[in-house]
């Protein structure tokens, strides 16, 4: 309800009861509700209780007179704006002055003209309210401008006079008492990068009357940076000349910051701080444009943490988020600067999210790709890094990931299809048993499988017991009996079938897997021979090929472990070492060889003749046997050089008291030549290809193999 609508309340203050009565009667007739006070003190008390809309105040009162009452009344917060009419003697100009000075709104001279008193009082009320409204509007406009951080400015061009509003000063960070408004002063506040263009825009407005609103930065004297929106209009005189510019300057810093925050929220994942899928796709679109122009390859990697839901379910979402963040950081650290990584939409808590997203998907964009093998290397590295345990919630958490890769331009030429194909490849990786990577193009997978993807499979092959040993017998040339067998590793791949050693041993060496594989071979060979011995088959030594890494990483320990574990007589174990292994770092080699020799294990040098053996070293090695490389045997006896070398090797070996073994014997001619020149032991398809343990057991029966050949 406004003051206009409700019944106005008047407070009549006079010590004269007759005056109060008359005024009251008069005002009540005019529709007022009246309260009376007989002195100033009572009047001040009633101000609070009755909240009058107007006060009629007699000047001459005992104790606190009208002036004093008015002055005190003005100090009351609830009465500061209430109009006060003072009742003064018409003959007393001095009292009128004093009334105004005390804060009176108006005065009425005595004797009072009763007929017009009501109108007069109403008029004073209206005028007072109008004044107050004006003041209120003024101040609400100012308040509104302050809240909107909207400053105004004007430039009177002919007089070169500038006006800045209070808010303009505030936005510019200037003190109105000190700063002098001018175009130059304003431009000095503008960030130097935008100063020139802002000046040009203002001058353009002066010349052509056009101004494009612009966002500029203001550098406040204290160094504060504000973003402001600058708007301007011009006024023309009769001749069409621009005479005045008016404009606004609005501080939109908070809006800008909010926009940046919103943009960040919209583009980045809350849990990991990585760009989200949406911004990744944007980035991918740009990268594709560049790659198209420069004919570059790109790889898109879709990486999904395997069974991440399990982490959440067992350890809680808190730990889950911690692990996720750590995984993200590891991935970022593994990538190059120029690679882009993002994470799929924030994990949703609760059943819906968990059902929809089994784990969390990362996307990686590899730019500047020379060869798709590089993508495979990155994928390999990412998987490797993730396999390292994570510390979260006070325990170790183990993770693996499945990776799918799509290549530009091979697997698609737009962001959508590349993302989709990488995703499909990732799902294929999941189907392959997780913890591996797959290219979208199957053809690439085929070669990558052999060279690269095979590593993870190789790793699993050990756990899944996919390796097995085949055995090739060694025949004594004199007795024609099996005197030994060479254990040869095979990989029974669940899908590829038997994978030959030359297809996985180099990779195994490269990755270090060769050592655990070598240990397995040693252990299995010893156990097998021990089993044969238990079955009372003839004493036969079993030879195991040793790789270079294994030789240098605790071979002695693995051998003694294998012997102890199986209980095999050390004399029935032979280790075969290639020339190249023995010739690296001869002193260490010598020490290792002696250690092995002391255990009672036989030592043989394998593939002899292909490397660069120094005869003097050879003499110092505690060897038992020497195997002539199959390349010399192959063309025997027709190739005179091979024949000569073979004869020389046999002679030299015998002079060093080494037993000589020829491998790769496939024909009777070869057999005849080797026998003729005194080769001690023979091995090759002529006698038997490598066979299973069961088959070999049959051969170890009395002289059956030899009979087959020599009869």
């Amino acid at each position, binding site marked *: 309800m406004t003051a206009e609508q409700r019944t106005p309340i008047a407070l009549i203050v006079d010590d*004269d009861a*007759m*005056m109060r009565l008359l005024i009251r*009667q008069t005002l009540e007739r005019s529709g007022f509700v009246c309260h009376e006070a007989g002195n100033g003190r009572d009047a001040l008390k009633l101000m609070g209780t009755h909240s009058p809309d107007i006060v009629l105040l007699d000047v*001459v009162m005992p104790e606190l007179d009208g002036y004093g009452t008015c002055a005190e009344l003005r100090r009351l917060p609830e009465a500061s704006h209430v109009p006060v009419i003072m009742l003064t003697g018409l003959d007393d100009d001095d009292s009128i002055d004093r009334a105004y000075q005390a804060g009176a709104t108006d005065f009425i001279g005595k004797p009072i003209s*009763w007929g017009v008193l009501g109108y007069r009082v109403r008029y004073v009320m209206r005028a007072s309210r109008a004044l107050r409204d004006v003041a209120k509007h003024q101040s609400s406009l100012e308040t509104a401008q302050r809240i909107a951080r909207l400053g105004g400015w004007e430039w009177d061009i002919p007089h070169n006079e500038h006006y800045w509003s209070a808010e303009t000063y505030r936005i510019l960070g200037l003190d109105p008492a000190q700063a002098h408004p001018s175009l130059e002063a304003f431009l000095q506040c503008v960030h130097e990068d935008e100063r020139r263009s802002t000046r040009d825009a203002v001058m353009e407005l002066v010349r052509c009357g056009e101004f494009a609103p612009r966002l500029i930065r203001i550098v406040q004297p204290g160094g504060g940076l504000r973003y402001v929106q600058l708007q301007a209009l011009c006024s023309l005189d009769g001749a069409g000349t621009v005479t005045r510019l008016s404009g606004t300057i609005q501080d939109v810093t908070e809006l800008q910051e909010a926009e940046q925050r919103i943009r960040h929220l919209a583009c980045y994942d809350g849990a990991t701080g990585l760009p989200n899928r949406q911004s990744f796709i944007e980035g991918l679109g740009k990268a594709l444009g560049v790659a198209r122009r420069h004919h570059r390859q790109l790889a898109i990697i879709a990486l999904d943490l395997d069974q991440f839901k399990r982490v959440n379910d067992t350890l809680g979402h808190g730990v889950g988020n911690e692990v996720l963040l750590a995984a993200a950081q590891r991935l970022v650290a593994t990538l190059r600067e120029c690679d882009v990584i993002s994470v799929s939409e924030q994990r949703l808590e609760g059943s819906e999210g968990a059902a929809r997203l089994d784990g969390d998907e990362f996307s990686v964009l590899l730019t500047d790709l020379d060869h798709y093998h590089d993508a495979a290397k990155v994928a390999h590295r990412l998987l490797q890094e993730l396999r390292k345990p994570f510390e979260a919630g006070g325990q170790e958490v183990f993770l693996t990931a499945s990776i799918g890769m799509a290549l530009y331009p091979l697997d698609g030429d737009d962001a959508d299809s590349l993302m989709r194909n990488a995703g499909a490849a990732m799902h294929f990786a999941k189907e392959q048993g997780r913890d591996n990577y797959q290219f979208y193009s199957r053809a690439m997978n085929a070669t990558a499988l052999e060279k690269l993807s095979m590593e993870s499979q190789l790793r699993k092959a050990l756990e899944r017991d996919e390796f097995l040993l085949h055995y090739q017998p060694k025949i004594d040339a004199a007795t024609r009996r099996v005197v030994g067998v060479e254990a040869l590793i095979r990989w029974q791949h669940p899908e590829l079938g038997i994978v030959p050693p030359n297809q996985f041993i180099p990779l195994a060496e490269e990755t270090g897997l060769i050592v655990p594989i070598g240990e397995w071979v040693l252990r299995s060979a010893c156990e097998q021979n021990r089993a044969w011995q238990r079955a009372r088959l003839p004493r036969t030594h079993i030879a195991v090929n040793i790789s270079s890494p294994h030789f240098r990483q605790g071979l002695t320990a693995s051998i003694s472990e294998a012997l102890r574990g199986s209980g095999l007589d050390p004399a029935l174990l032979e280790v075969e070492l290639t020339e190249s292994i023995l010739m690296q770092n001869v002193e260490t080699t010598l020490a290792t060889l002696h250690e092995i020799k002391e255990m009672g294990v036989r030592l043989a040098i394998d593939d002899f003749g292909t490397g660069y053996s120094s005869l003097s070293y050879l003499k110092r090695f505690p060897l038992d046997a020497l195997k002539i490389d199959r390349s010399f045997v192959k063309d025997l006896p027709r190739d005179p050089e091979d024949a000569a070398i073979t004869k020389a090797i046999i002679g030299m070996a015998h002079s060093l008291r080494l037993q000589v073994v020829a491998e790769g014997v496939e024909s009777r001619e070869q057999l005849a030549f080797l026998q003729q020149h005194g080769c001690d032991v023979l091995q090759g398809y002529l006698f038997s290809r490598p066979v299973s343990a069961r088959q070999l057991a049959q051969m170890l029966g009395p002289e059956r193999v030899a009979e087959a050949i020599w009869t």
Partner: protein
Amino acid sequence: MPSVCRTLVESDMETAHRLAELDRAALETIRSISDGSDDLLRQVVCLFVDSTPALLEDIEAGLKNGEMDRLRMAAHTLKSSAANLGATVLGDMARQLETAARAGILGQGLPSFPSVKEEFEAACRALDALLGEAG
């Protein structure tokens, strides 16, 4: 004869002297405030009759002892109440006393207290007569 109030009746009985001149317009104004009835006028007259003797005491003491504030306040109040009831002579006397008291000079030519008192009584009689006439 119905009297407005006791004081007026007593005064009436002691000294049956002249009636003061009353400005009828002022009285009509008061009547008009109360829509032409005499109710308000009766109340105002009653207030005038009841409260003025105290003012007269202040005026008398003020004049005798030179208490200017006391004199000024009392004269000021009497001035406006007399004016309200159209007792112009009494009002004018009060105005002169007020002005002199404000100036602080109680010189020659000022109305004497007895003359003020006599004029108040004449006004009372006139008002009583007026109300009796109307009533």
